[in-house]
């Protein structure tokens, strides 16, 4: 028997004034799964997380979590089993790393005495053992994010809600964060993750939810979504005369052709014949690669820059 979902959102709606920020959004998270929520800025990702936390109430729809508890009615009981890393750090600047964990554990009802043995473990998990007495202001961006993650684990939550946990981090810090999140998934924790990094979504998430303008526009496993919506190969062409190719007979070798700026994108089932044909044209720069999640994302949500993007 498949186990019941940890969290289920049904037909959520949220309006601010005349703008519908979340529009009939439904999804669920199964135990042990990592669900990625991707969408352009302003797509409704953060509002959805805020509704899952009971910080804002949906105008319609319901959220059920942890065996029949309802948000926002049972907000405290649900949040006792959640761990949250929000988009912006809310660490206490006046406390050391260790104190940040102890103070945060108190909000869950753990006394300093009861919680003290867990502090070294959590700091070790966050690779911050050597910074136990440092204040957040003395830490790098990656260290602060890992401290936020450690803080989200003080109550040994079943489900983690992570809102863009690696935005602004350098590649080393990002890879360390991914490693830690994979460890948590192996331990059986579930994760809901919002991100702008498609490689992050592809690497970590077992399932993806693509939302735009508050609406779900696609849902499924990353590879399956790509196979379903895109041709397997992409050939990017730019340089002298590239733009003219978009309307040339070369089109026949591609299922779809897109022009963005100076570059022509050929989405094709048959890259070999396209590349052979392109070889006849001099002065072009050609980049051939498999279709990826970013292509899918751009196909579904468009290439135009969003207002706050």
């Amino acid at each position, binding site marked *: 028997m498949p186990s019941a979902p940890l969290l289920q959102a049904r037909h959520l709606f949220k309006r*601010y004034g005349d703008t519908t920020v979340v529009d009939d959004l439904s999804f669920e998270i199964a135990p042990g799964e990592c669900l990625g929520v991707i969408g352009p800025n302003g797509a409704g990702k953060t509002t959805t997380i805020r509704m899952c*936390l009971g*910080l*804002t*109430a*949906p*105008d*319609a*729809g*319901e959220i059920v979590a942890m065996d029949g508890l309802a948000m*926002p009615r049972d*907000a*405290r*009981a649900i*949040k*006792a089993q*959640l761990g*949250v890393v*929000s988009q*912006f*750090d*809310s*660490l*206490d*600047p*006046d*406390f050391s790393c260790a*104190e940040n964990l102890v*103070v*945060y554990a*108190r*909000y*869950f*009802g753990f006394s300093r005495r009861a919680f003290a043995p867990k502090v070294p473990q959590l700091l070790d998990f966050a690779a911050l053992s050597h910074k136990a007495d440092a204040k957040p202001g003395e830490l790098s961006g990656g260290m602060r994010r890992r401290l936020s993650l450690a*803080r*989200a684990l003080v*109550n040994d939550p079943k489900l983690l809600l992570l809102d863009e946990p690696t935005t602004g981090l350098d590649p080393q810090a990002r890879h360390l964060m991914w490693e830690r999140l994979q460890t948590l998934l192996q331990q059986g924790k579930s994760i809901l993750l919002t991100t702008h990094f498609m490689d992050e979504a592809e690497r970590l998430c077992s399932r993806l939810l693509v939302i735009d303008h508050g609406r779900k526009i696609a849902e499924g496993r990353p590879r399956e979504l790509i196979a379903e919506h895109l041709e397997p190969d992409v050939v990017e062409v730019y340089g002298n005369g590239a733009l003219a190719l978009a309307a040339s007979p070369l089109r026949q070798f591609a299922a779809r052709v897109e022009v963005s700026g100076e570059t022509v994108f050929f989405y094709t089932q048959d890259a070999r014949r396209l590349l052979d044909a392109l070889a006849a044209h001099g002065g072009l720069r050609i980049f051939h690669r498999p279709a990826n999640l970013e292509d899918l994302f751009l196909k579904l949500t468009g290439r135009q820059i969003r207002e706050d993007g």
Partner: protein
Amino acid sequence: MKTADPSPWRPPAITARWWPVFLRNLLVWRKLALPSLIGNIAEPLIWLVAFGYGMGALVGQVQVDGRAVPYILFLASGSICMSAMNAASFEALYSAFSRMHVQKTWDGIMNAPVGLDDVVFAEMAWAAFKSLFTVTAILLVMLGLGISHSPKLLAAWFILAGCGIVFSSIALIFNALAKSYDFFTYYFTLFMTPMMFLSGVFFPLEQLPDAVQAVARWLPLANAVALVRPLFMDQWPAAWLQPALTLAAYAVAAFWAALALTRRRFAA
């Protein structure tokens, strides 16, 4: 199912989880308590010494309820209420705003099983506590200076605790409405400064025109002074019920309003 935000004016839902939030503020403050205490009590004491002894020499005695009292005693009993007001207001405006808006401390706390009502109550209790701490230190210095030895100062201490609650709650209303620190300048110049001069801190209310007096008697600070001053003179306040009820009404109404406006701010 319709689950729109319930009214922000619904009754407070405060649980025991306000305590870890209070404790958090206490722990931060403990790290810099001594310099902060010196800063908090130095200014009121400089005022007291300069005005009390300096002006006191010119003014001599002041008539209170038909009794002549030294100006320093008159001023001390009023200015301690003002200190309670100032300490509570600064904490519940600038410091609370830092935690709420700048550091996002409240957001972090509310990701844990702690509600906004608990957070707002903890901030109110914390600002009131800090105000009482400051006031206690000033009282001790006043005792040392021999300004008053009335045993009824203990009763005054409780009134001053209430005074801290009232002004913390009022300040949290403005905290809930603020977009930046600049907003608090209005509160200080348009509300607190006039109140300071209309509440009988520096001179008896009776000096003011009748119409102004009639308004002034409803100011929270004036009611606090009306209760505390007789206690400094080792007398029980003749009419204690009305000012006590007025202060209690301010505390309840202001806290409720602060909570409702903060809920509205966070629901957006």
